[in-house]
């Protein structure tokens, strides 16, 4: 049984690759700057945010954050990766209805494709992060490489969620709107531009700690920004959220995928 799945995946891995490269071609077709936008876009977004939090909303930014620009950029990039890739994954199965009605393709290819595409995009935008770090003269720690761990576990976590959402979206289009609202709420609880401690509210702190996004972002900041090693607890939390969500995603997908074509 398992062998069959592996064979199937190996047969269609080129398709996965081609689909991702198509996403890139279409994203940057007819734009003069092309791939440079993957770097420029987050850079400009973060510049805007930075100015806003230093002028209009100066009271809201976290106190005592030594390098606010880098703190903010990391939060932004990781959260956007999560939001964009899950949102794309959500409609991926539906958008390929034409194809799925005509040929057999393993259906999980589509959410997987969107998460991979988001991940590659995110890696590009890390160039923006490095630029911000250089401008603000933030020290580059060797532990920066450990940042890959929270990033990759976040990708697995997103894949699990993307699979659940893409399956649900086939049956209920409402999910698309609900998810938009939900991620907005989630964003405010991810400590992107503040520290949970600054409010002095233990309940709120506890609530934020329950947010997996906050955990991934914090682990990433610890390694990339503060030059720390990951604690055992952090390693466990990142892996646990990712694996639980992936298992859930696979389960939901497996239970529903045979019905997809009947509802699309």
């Amino acid at each position: 049984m398992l062998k069959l799945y592996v064979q199937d995946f190996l047969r269609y891995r080129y398709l996965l690759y081609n689909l991702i490269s198509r996403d890139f071609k279409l994203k940057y077709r007819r734009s003069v700057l092309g791939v440079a936008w993957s770097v420029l876009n987050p850079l400009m977004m973060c510049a805007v945010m930075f100015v806003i939090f230093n002028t209009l909303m100066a009271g809201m930014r976290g106190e005592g954050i030594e390098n606010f620009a880098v703190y903010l950029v990391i939060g932004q990039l990781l959260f956007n990766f999560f939001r964009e890739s899950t949102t794309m994954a959500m409609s991926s199965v539906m958008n390929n209805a034409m194809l799925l009605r005509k040929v057999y393709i393993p259906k999980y290819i589509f959410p997987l494709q969107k998460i991979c595409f988001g991940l590659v995009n995110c890696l590009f935008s890390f160039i923006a992060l490095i630029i911000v770090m250089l401008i603000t003269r933030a020290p580059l720690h060797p532990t920066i490489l450990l940042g890959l761990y929270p990033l990759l576990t976040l990708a697995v976590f997103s894949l699990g969620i993307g699979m659940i959402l893409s399956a649900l979206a086939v049956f209920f289009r409402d999910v698309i709107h609900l998810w938009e609202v939900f991620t907005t709420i989630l964003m405010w609880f991810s400590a992107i531009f503040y520290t949970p401690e600054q409010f002095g509210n233990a309940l709120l702190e506890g609530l934020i700690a329950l947010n997996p996004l906050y955990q991934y972002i914090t682990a990433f900041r610890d390694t990339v920004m503060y030059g720390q090693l990951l604690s055992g607890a952090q390693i466990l939390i990142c892996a646990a959220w990712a694996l639980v969500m992936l298992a859930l995603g696979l389960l939901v997908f497996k239970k529903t995928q045979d019905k997809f074509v009947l509802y699309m």
Partner: protein
Amino acid sequence: MQQPIIEVNNVSMRFNLAKEKSESLKEYFLQLVKGKLRFDEFFALKDVSLQVQPGDFYGLIGLNGSGKSTLLKVISGVYKPSSGTCKVRGTVAPLIELGAGFDMDLTARENIYLNGTVLGFSPKYIDAHFEEIVEFSELRDFLDVPLKNYSSGMVARLAFAVATITKPDVLIADEILAVGDFLFQEKCEQRMQKLMSGGTTVILVSHSIEQIERMCNKVAWLEHGRIKMNGPTQEVCEAYKQTTREDGSH
């Protein structure tokens, strides 16, 4: 007797009709409360059994909505039957309908690779057959033109060329030969004959009874999702023509 390459055993395919398809949560719960869910069921296939021997050139005939395409999709693995089993021993190459698997914004060259991998070929395999595809589709001068600028005949030629570079065990063709000019149709037929002489089993759906008579050695006649008749081409086609003629004279 040889083992059949395709074994369709008592397959039924049930669809929920569009009017009770729930597009939103509200509708879903409303219908759930009213007890209307799964109210209108429609059987596209009912208790269909079919055995195809290796090397057969099987034709499927029947009026619109008789379940021909559904049966093809069950065989190619797109649909999972609501009940019954479908077993295929070997690889299946479906000749997809026009345009599916192609991205109209990409060029023909890019689409050859995309569509090739959709069908499960490796890029290496496509590389090796690239010339053959270009040659057969006669589209060399348009390789780097986005597909949206192609005529439908050109798209069909490309689709057919990509799908038939392989030597599949089973080739599934749904009305594919109805596109393109007559010269290209002849070319397609020749290629399918050639594939078959190489041991490929073909299942063909067509509304052109002449084409079925010319190419197939066995025919199954579907009516309202059931197999009405199944056997050698001559017999089935005669009976089919008889009834359609009678229906037409009413």
